[in-house]
């Protein structure tokens, strides 16, 4: 079966955050606890996530925010000129997924549709997948003691539906489908944009981390959108660091053999 994925065409995103709302709705996600705080005079916690520097109020992905429309708000010094870029971000469902490679208990699995899924009943909350994700996606929730992230709407896609975010997107910026189909669509759109003069337009996710099932069309360099130019899947380096460590161990063993031999055996045995 073809892997399912999403193509996020950021050139037509309007930053409406309908996808974020749809994701919360469908997946039954609560408000992000860190966005609320106690305030004098209020019996309940009130929102405190307004930075005063950005119109973006969720600011990053978390265990309860599986989708995040990133606002790239660029102004010149006197704020007479501005450029706003939007990109709806989520788990990329990498084909070489750092989180999955790191999981010691097989709580993170890949389903037959290619999406990377966290089994809540298996996760032990060791948190090792968190620094292993090159995109900083997967997050820990104190309340469940486990990690959470976008599932690519695992329940929906295994029942013939698309993802909730794609369904809700009013501009078609998020498209759900078979990855090869989406790629054709992305290639065509890239050609179109280049013709229109968007020189820097590029597709992000064909080669990164073994290929991303959720990939992007950006109008500027990936860094501008907060994505690493060349994400390194940590486990790709495992052989080298293991090798160096083994070499150190051998050196120490030889050192011990020499140090304790010196005055120990030489004199006694002919």
């Amino acid at each position, binding site marked *: 079966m073809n892997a399912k994925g999403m193509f996020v065409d950021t050139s037509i995103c309007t930053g409406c955050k309908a996808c974020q709302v749809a994701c919360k709705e469908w997946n039954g996600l609560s408000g992000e606890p860190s966005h609320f705080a106690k305030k004098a005079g209020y019996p309940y916690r009130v929102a405190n996530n307004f930075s005063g520097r950005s119109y973006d109020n969720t600011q990053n992905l978390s265990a309860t925010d599986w989708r995040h429309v990133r606002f790239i708000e660029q102004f010149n010094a006197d704020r007479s000129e501005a450029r706003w870029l939007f990109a709806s971000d989520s788990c990329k469902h990498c084909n070489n997924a750092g989180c999955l490679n790191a999981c010691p208990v097989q*709580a993170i699995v890949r389903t037959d549709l290619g999406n990377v899924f966290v089994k809540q009943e298996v996760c032990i909350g060791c948190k090792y997948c968190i620094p292993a994700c090159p995109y900083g996606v997967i997050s820990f929730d104190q309340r469940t003691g486990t990690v959470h992230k976008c599932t690519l709407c695992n329940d929906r896609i295994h029942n013939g539906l698309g993802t909730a975010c794609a369904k809700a997107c009013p501009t078609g910026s998020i498209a759900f489908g078979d990855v090869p189909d989406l790629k054709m669509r992305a290639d065509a759109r890239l050609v179109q944009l280049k013709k229109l003069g968007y020189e820097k337009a590029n597709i992000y996710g064909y080669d990164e981390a073994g290929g991303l099932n959720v990939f992007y069309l950006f109008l500027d360099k990936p860094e501008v959108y907060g994505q690493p130019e060349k994400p390194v899947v940590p486990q790709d380096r495992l052989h080298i660091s293991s090798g160096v460590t083994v070499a150190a161990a051998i050196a120490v*063993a030889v050192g011990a053999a020499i140090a304790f031999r010196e005055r*120990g055996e030489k004199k006694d045995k002919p």
Partner: protein
Amino acid sequence: MMALESQAPHWEWYYIALYFFIGGVSAGAYFIGSLIELLGYEKHREVSKAAYRIAFPLICITPVLLIADLGRPERFWHLFFSNGPGSIYTNHTSPLSVGTWALLVYSGMSFLSFLNVQVEDGRLALPALKKVHEMFSRLPHKVYAAIGSFFGFFVAGYTGVLLNTTARPLWAGTDPWIGALFIVSAASTGAAAIALVMARRQALAPDTARSLQTFEQPVMIAELAIIVVMLAVAGRYAVPLLTGLSGVLFLGGAVLLGLLVPLGRQFMARAGTAERDGGVIITSAFILAGSAFLRIALVQAGQS
């Protein structure tokens, strides 16, 4: 290029860094002791015995620390038997998974070696433990010393590989050196712990003290060298390790107190003889504290 936005796992230093430290001392002591046993250096049998007496009790503490840091401590057994596929499970691309198995095997071997020492000293009273000892004594002691020694190195080093195998700028930037750093630091702390225990019981023969120092010194110099290489490789990603509280712990605690001061003390005392008991105890305490600071600094700076 490093990840722009990798997230910190929020491991608590008093669980994870402390585990790295205690596990390192135990494993370091054990591999020194078992190597001496394997090579048949009978003259240093007391070193082996001291090592085994240290290794097992220390490693008993570590599962408590590891399990306490889990979000779901009651599920720790999934590490060995996954309720996902419903079978025994290892993930060979995960240092955490392989390391946990290594820790299990190592604990078993260090337990057997510990029993041996107790029997040798005629201190094993519990009948049940006597039975266990008899059962395993059918195998030559060197067999589990060999297995334990291998997994001891593993336990000492995998924690460094585990940190390197992430996308956190400091830990990824210092790749592939933390594993090697933890190996040499486990070696010096293992030797220091042995020296400390023997000196406290006034059982440290001058010959033995000299051998332990002969081993420690090049290892500590190697540790300094690895630190320099690691910082050079990391470049600007090393900044969190050199600034703030982590910087104080790393430069002041690990490098100065943990390496330069002990090396200095040993060289001063060297003129002729090794340090006397009191001196050994102080030097060893510096080495041990320095290695604890090293791990706390690396774990914390990588998460800031």
